[in-house]
């Protein structure tokens, strides 16, 4: 197997006196699609933010292509971030910019791209996520939840990233739009050699797009394996798939 692209080494995150993650270790390999599942508040989004350096671990280390994020200077960190696309839970579109400017933002900020090329790339990405041409001039406040997610995805893909991070990409969407987003994630993966990490609560998304599932329980990793293994076992030894907490989450049952 090739070298891991992203490595979490005994990572801990603490806010004030509250531990969110403790001693989490994980390797993510190139072109894998990994889904993080687990109950709300167990630190899944924190993990995504650790990967892109938006959050600093209070313990342990995060490595990108074998290099610790702590060792990167500002310029190197920016270069690393430009290789990572991030679809935020709320899409995080810039309110004061229209759709075109949102998607073009990263290209313009990076510099060195001709205006015509920026325009062509934006049109291409909007088409890729299935948005009509007329949407370019709309403001984020005029878009539906699903459209916002698609614009967010187009913006994340505009810089041709090697890694895509999706934070609950289907949360708040109807079943049809959920499937549209799932298809877009699959399509993104097939069109380019991209490594994907998806935080989700949707088991349908896990089954449809993930090669590997990691389940988190408050503070740490509980189970890991291929999607089917989470149902049927055997997992990697951290816990059996028969663990009542795994079963409870997968089956979506309230506590015993």
């Amino acid at each position, binding site marked *: 197997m090739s070298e891991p692209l992203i490595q979490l080494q005994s990572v801990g995150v603490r806010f004030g006196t509250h531990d969110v993650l403790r001693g989490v270790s994980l390797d993510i390999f190139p072109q894998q699609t990994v889904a993080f599942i687990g109950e709300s508040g167990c630190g899944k989004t924190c993990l995504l933010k650790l990967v*892109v350096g938006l959050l600093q671990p209070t313990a342990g280390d995060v490595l990108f292509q074998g290099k610790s994020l702590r060792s990167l200077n500002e310029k190197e960190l920016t270069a690393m971030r430009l290789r*990572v696309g991030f679809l935020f839970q709320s899409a995080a579109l810039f309110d004061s910019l229209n759709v075109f400017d949102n998607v073009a933002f990263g290209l313009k900020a990076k510099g060195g791209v001709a205006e015509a090329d920026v325009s062509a790339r934006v049109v291409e990405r909007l088409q890729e996520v299935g948005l009509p041409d007329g949407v370019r001039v709309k403001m984020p406040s005029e878009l539906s939840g699903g459209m916002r997610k698609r614009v967010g995805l187009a913006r*994340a893909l505009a810089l041709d990233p090697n890694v895509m991070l999706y934070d609950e990409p289907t949360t708040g969407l109807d079943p049809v739009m959920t499937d549209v987003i799932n298809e877009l994630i699959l399509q993104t993966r097939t069109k380019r050699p991209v490594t994907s990490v998806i935080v989700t609560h949707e088991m349908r998304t896990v089954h449809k797009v993930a090669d590997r599932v990691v389940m988190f329980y408050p503070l740490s990793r509980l189970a890991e394996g291929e999607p089917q293994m989470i149902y049927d076992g055997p997992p990697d030894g951290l816990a059996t798939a028969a663990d009542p907490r795994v079963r409870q989450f997968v089956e979506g049952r309230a506590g015993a």
Partner: protein
Amino acid sequence: MASDSAQPAPGIVSSIADSLVALGDWTAFSWRAVTGLLTRHFKRRELMHLCLVVGLDSVGVIAITGTFIGMVLAVQAYSQFHQIGLDTSLGAVIHMSVVRELGPVLTAVMLAGRVGSAMAAELGTMRVTEQLDALACLGVDPVRFLVAPRFLAAVLMIPMLTVLADIMGLIGSSFVCLRVYHIDAYHYWEHTRAFVGFWDVFVGLVKSVAFGGVTALIACHRGFHGTAGAEGVGRAATQSFVISFIVILALDFVFGLLANSVHDMIWPPSGSKPF
């Protein structure tokens, strides 16, 4: 018992420690923002827009505030000065107060309330909706990109707003003194000319620049550190105003002492003021 009372309460120690940490964080944040003026993240078009928001949109409220401050000062001071027959000195006293103190301080307070709170709320909302994180992911430093132009817009616009407040205060007070109380205009203006000089205007404007810069940096810092939800955004806006207000008053005191010391160094008290 005695030893207990000698020990500071843990709550006080942690509060002081927290305040020092926050001050250090604000200083580093401010340095990053100010140095951001020299980087590629700084956009002139954004600066123009912000100058309009900070400056032009504040003209009305600053003009009204300045006018009423001048008028109120005139009404309050007249009864005292009239009793001792110093009506014509009112111009000097009121205009000195407006130019050196009330003009810069009230303009800065209005700016903190009208613009600072809006900046804190806007940036706080951007934080809550992860727009600040999105900027960082797109290779843009949010502090340099968002705070640097806001800081510069405040620093550039506040002296102009202060001059407006000064002029309107002068007009308001003159109207009351000359038209309502019929004070002799010649002596009123002569006293003003004799006592209010370039130095007073200069000190007022220097103070206003400092107030504007600090207010913008406090507002942006609060916005960046806002907590989640509507309550967090509201709290950031409130904190921005309250902290700015206290800092403006504290800075005004420090500037007052400093300006007097500098004045006495350049023009020793025995000598008359050259201008």
